[in-house]
């Protein structure tokens, strides 16, 4: 459903991504793990064209695009098939919770107000925020803001949702509520690509784990394979480091 071929990206002459190949099937939950500064978030942002790769191809269902020749129109098409949940939530600060979820449905998808309202209520109910409809983002906790941003993404019924370290800027006691919401999303069959440092969470919800280091994919496989059976030195070193530092469970 999503296929990336030979993706390269450089910032000021530094090559961040050095030829990435990634395949995601419909209904997959693919988790990118690896040390900080490895390019996991950058890879995720390339899928949504928030970065400009210097080379590579992307296929998303019926869209087949080359990053070197991609047009503004193609970028918009790509973005309208996907949705992203950011580390910093990035809610629209001048809009209420309800308006945040309704906005893109009306502006981008051209839905009628009542229709967008209905869908928004439905999604906000799933993330447990029906009592906060009229609140502004600044009145919510980080965990609540992130749940709104997940509802905002889901309301667009994207073919693929990208989660960029959705719990990394949350206080430890708020991580659980957001992970539970993501877990429900994963169970509902939506295709997900996720970047996270929550290893036990990644192990429990993923259908595939991709371990990245220094701009390349070192290895990929089932959670069982990566977490238990891998013989790769880099993978083992990274996971051992995590096991000894694991603080937050699910």
């Amino acid at each position, binding site marked *: 459903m999503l296929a990336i071929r030979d993706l390269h990206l450089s910032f000021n002459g530094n090559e961040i991504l050095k030829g990435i190949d990634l395949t995601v099937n419909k209904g997959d939950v693919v988790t990118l793990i690896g040390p900080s500064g490895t390019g996991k978030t950058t890879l995720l942002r390339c899928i949504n064209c928030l970065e400009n790769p210097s080379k590579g191809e992307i296929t998303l269902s019926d869209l087949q695009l080359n990053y070197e020749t991609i047009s503004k129109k193609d970028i918009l098409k790509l973005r309208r098939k996907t949705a992203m949940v950011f580390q910093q*939530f*990035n809610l629209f600060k001048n809009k209420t919770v309800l308006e945040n979820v309704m906005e*893109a449905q009306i*502006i981008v998808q051209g839905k009628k107000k009542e229709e967008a309202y209905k869908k928004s209520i439905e999604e906000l109910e799933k993330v447990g925020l029906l009592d906060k409809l009229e609140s*502004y983002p*600044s*009145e919510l906790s980080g965990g609540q803001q992130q749940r709104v941003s997940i509802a905002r993404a889901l309301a667009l019924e994207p073919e693929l949702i990208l989660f960029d370290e959705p719990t990394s800027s949350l206080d430890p006691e708020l991580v659980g509520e957001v992970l539970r919401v993501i877990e429900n999303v994963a169970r509902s069959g939506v295709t997900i690509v996720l970047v996270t440092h929550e290893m036990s969470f990644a192990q429990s919800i993923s259908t595939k784990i991709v371990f990245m280091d220094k701009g390349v994919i070192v290895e990929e496989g089932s959670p069982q394979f990566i977490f238990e059976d891998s013989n790769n030195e880099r993978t083992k070193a990274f996971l051992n480091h995590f096991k000894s530092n694991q603080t937050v469970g699910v």
Partner: protein
Amino acid sequence: MFDFKVLLESIIEIATVVPKTLVLAIFILLLSLLMGAIIALIQQYKVPVFSQIIKVLQSFLRGTPNVVLLYLMYYALPGILTFFAGILRIEFDANSLNPIVTVILTFSISYSVFQSEIIRGSILSIEKGQIEAAQSLGFSFWQTFRRVIIPQALVAAFPDILNSLLVIIKALSLAYLISVVDILGQAKMVGALSYRYLEAFVGAALIYWLIGVILTFISNRFELKLRHGFH
């Protein structure tokens, strides 16, 4: 002796030109905002030639007093307009040029440079994350601009814009130099007629002050209202 009765009479006399002064100031404010927005865009996208011209203009306008600009325009504008009218083969009598036009043009141009800074600052104050969120949700460039950037930039710029209205109202006190009668111009005439200059100028000062107080009050009220719920 200071005569309060004369002061009151002077204030009433001077107050008759307050609406005219305010309309003039608001007109200049809107025009300078429009020009400021264009300047901000040219600078943001570094449009060749234009952005260099604007840089020089900016430095020139920063370094010259409003009075000088006003006289400059007063003596140069008829010639310039006649020249362009000649090119376009339009009948134009330079002597028919209303000095109000000169005042509006001079102040609009000279404040547009400052307005562009206000506009730029307010747009830059919006977090990149919100813009990226809009993009990732599939908003086009204009949709992002209209739905996300503009509403928040307006709120951020609102106090500065009202402040510049006050600055323009005060700067208009120079307009009488080219025979446009504003608050100060009216005060001078009232003083000349009654020979009570002190009362007339105290009256003018009080009126300016009152306008300032009202604008500050509006600014505070609206800022709170506009910002309701977010900062």
